[in-house]
């Protein structure tokens, strides 16, 4: 059995912490964070800040001891905005009229109440890389990168110049999640057609329903189709609703 958190079967055992230290020693200014995986698979991951990602990736590939020359799997994950409701005990100062020895007196009293607060944790899109080493026969090392948000700052550096195997997989993430990989030689949609507008793998994606072409007795299906049509700019439905 291997020690928890170690990588590889035959090669020397390196923990994610050791790899993090090696990255930080080799790439100046690299921000790396260890994320523990509570599952029994114990595949812990390193979150890399995207500013230094290209240098980190080149280091992981070219370092003779790590030699992660094989990008096995690359995929996206959508983390939508999360609304978190939490109960907080709040202590505040309240003016109260208190019966004193000389009649009624105004006095500041501390009072503790339960308060329900809602806050929104901003979401992001994440790219997950599973690296193996063909030369050393170890792995996987899991690398993650996050975009700033899900709407306008969705850029990550493309790692296709480092691992060619990222080419189609980055296109697929761009297609299905909407992460824009800067520096990709040919970033186009790959599975959906070119004119398609939305990103189908996102958690808040609503399926388009073109069921009005088929006879249906369900009004709510038609209503949904109408609603969907009206959201597409320049469509017939949009003109009607406007």
């Amino acid at each position, binding site marked *: 059995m291997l020690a928890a958190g170690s990588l590889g079967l035959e090669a020397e055992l390196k923990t994610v912490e050791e790899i993090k230290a090696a990255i930080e020693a080799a790439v100046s200014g690299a921000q790396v964070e260890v994320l523990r995986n509570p*599952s029994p698979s114990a595949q812990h991951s390193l979150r890399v800040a995207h500013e230094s990602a290209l240098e980190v990736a080149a280091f992981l590939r070219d370092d003779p001891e790590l030699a992660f020359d094989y990008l096995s799997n690359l995929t996206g994950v959508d983390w939508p905005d999360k609304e978190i409701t939490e109960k907080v005990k709040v202590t505040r100062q309240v003016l109260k009229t208190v019966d004193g020895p000389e009649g009624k007196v105004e006095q500041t009293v501390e009072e503790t109440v339960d308060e329900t607060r809602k806050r929104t944790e901003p979401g992001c899109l994440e790219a997950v890389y599973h690296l193996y080493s063909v030369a050393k026969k170890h792995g996987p090392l899991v690398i993650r990168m996050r975009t700033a948000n899900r709407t306008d700052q969705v850029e990550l550096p493309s790692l296709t110049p480092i691992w060619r195997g990222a080419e189609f997989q980055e296109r697929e993430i761009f297609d299905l999640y909407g992460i824009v990989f800067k520096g990709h030689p040919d970033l186009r949609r790959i599975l959906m057609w070119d004119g398609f507008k939305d990103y189908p793998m996102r958690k808040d994606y609503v399926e388009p329903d073109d069921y009005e072409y088929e006879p249906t007795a369900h009004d709510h299906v038609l209503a949904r189709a109408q609603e969907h049509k009206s959201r597409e700019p320049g469509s017939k439905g949009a003109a009607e609703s406007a």
Partner: protein
Amino acid sequence: MSAVETKSEREEGWNRPPVIEPGGEGELLEVAMGPHHPSTHGVFRMDVALDGERVIRLKPVFGYLHRNHEKIAEGAAYLASMPYTDRLDYFCSLTNNWAYALAVEKLVGQEVPERAEYIRVILAELTRIQNHASTIGFLLQEMGASGTPLMYAFREREKILDLFESLTGSRMMCNYMRFGGCRVDVSVSWLDATRKVVSGLPAFADEFEALLSSNEILMARCQGIGVLKPELAVNASVSGPMLRGSGVNYDIRKVDRYGVYDRFKFRVPLGDHGDIYDRYMVRVLEMRESIRILEQALKDIPPGPIMDPKSKIRGFRPKPGEAYGRIEAPKGELGFYLISDGGPNPYRYRVRPPSLINLTVLEDMCLGHNVADVVLIFGSVDIVLGEVDR
């Protein structure tokens, strides 16, 4: 399609396909090979720019069979996706089942009984033999050997599919593996029937090789065509017989030693040149190694349970976490990446399709060759569109 890029437009880097300057006078001919073409194994298109017969540029176009398998699986319970994995690579449904079961077992830390592991190995190796035989048959079909090699391969495949049918109830959509074991036990008579089929396989491999390996036309059409260099193969995440055809010694059965593969003696065939002929040869030799594994597994299969008694069918909710599990499928590295948020459905379900990723280097292999060779190079990649488009 836009005009051909010039060298300066293409960013520099050794791992990009080279830019070939068209020679002579005249315009390039742009051809869309597919999506309905007998050589494309399904609905798949190659946008090819030709200078005479020579390929100057090639862009694969996918998505005709896209049904967003991953999204559907994220809306279904873990076990409900098991029959759907059959439809990815419909030639090899049992290895698809195994890859998915392996990823889930990693996610929840489940053990698999010894007998079930042996059954899995037997079924996976039978799958590999029928896949490689059919792939070679199709390759020869595309070379113009109309029918005969493919029929030889399909004759053998029929015997193996009959075994699958008698065990799982279905020839191709087997839906047989479960998290922590297998669905039904194999019977003594099934094992005997399998031994009988396996004992006939070496003769089939001999016959197949006598027919093909030193065939003049096959050698002329395949040797030196579609060369893939080992450095590029590794860098482009190529896997399976294509990677080993380029001479890279990387077999996940040996590297990860998943299941009980560490108990069997087998060799990993490697190519020298990385051309179509090496890929063909690696597949033939892998069939022979699979026969060796089958003989050992059928001899050693132990009695015992086929399901982990602690495995849960109802209310299966893995604890939050993630896992990536991969196996050496006949077409290459098939992996499943799962994120659990503690619910009954996976939060993220990702298939790492070997067919799609092996196509990354299709352009690099085809550039400079004749358009007739593109058909062969494409056939030697061995793809199934159900898995490419998902």
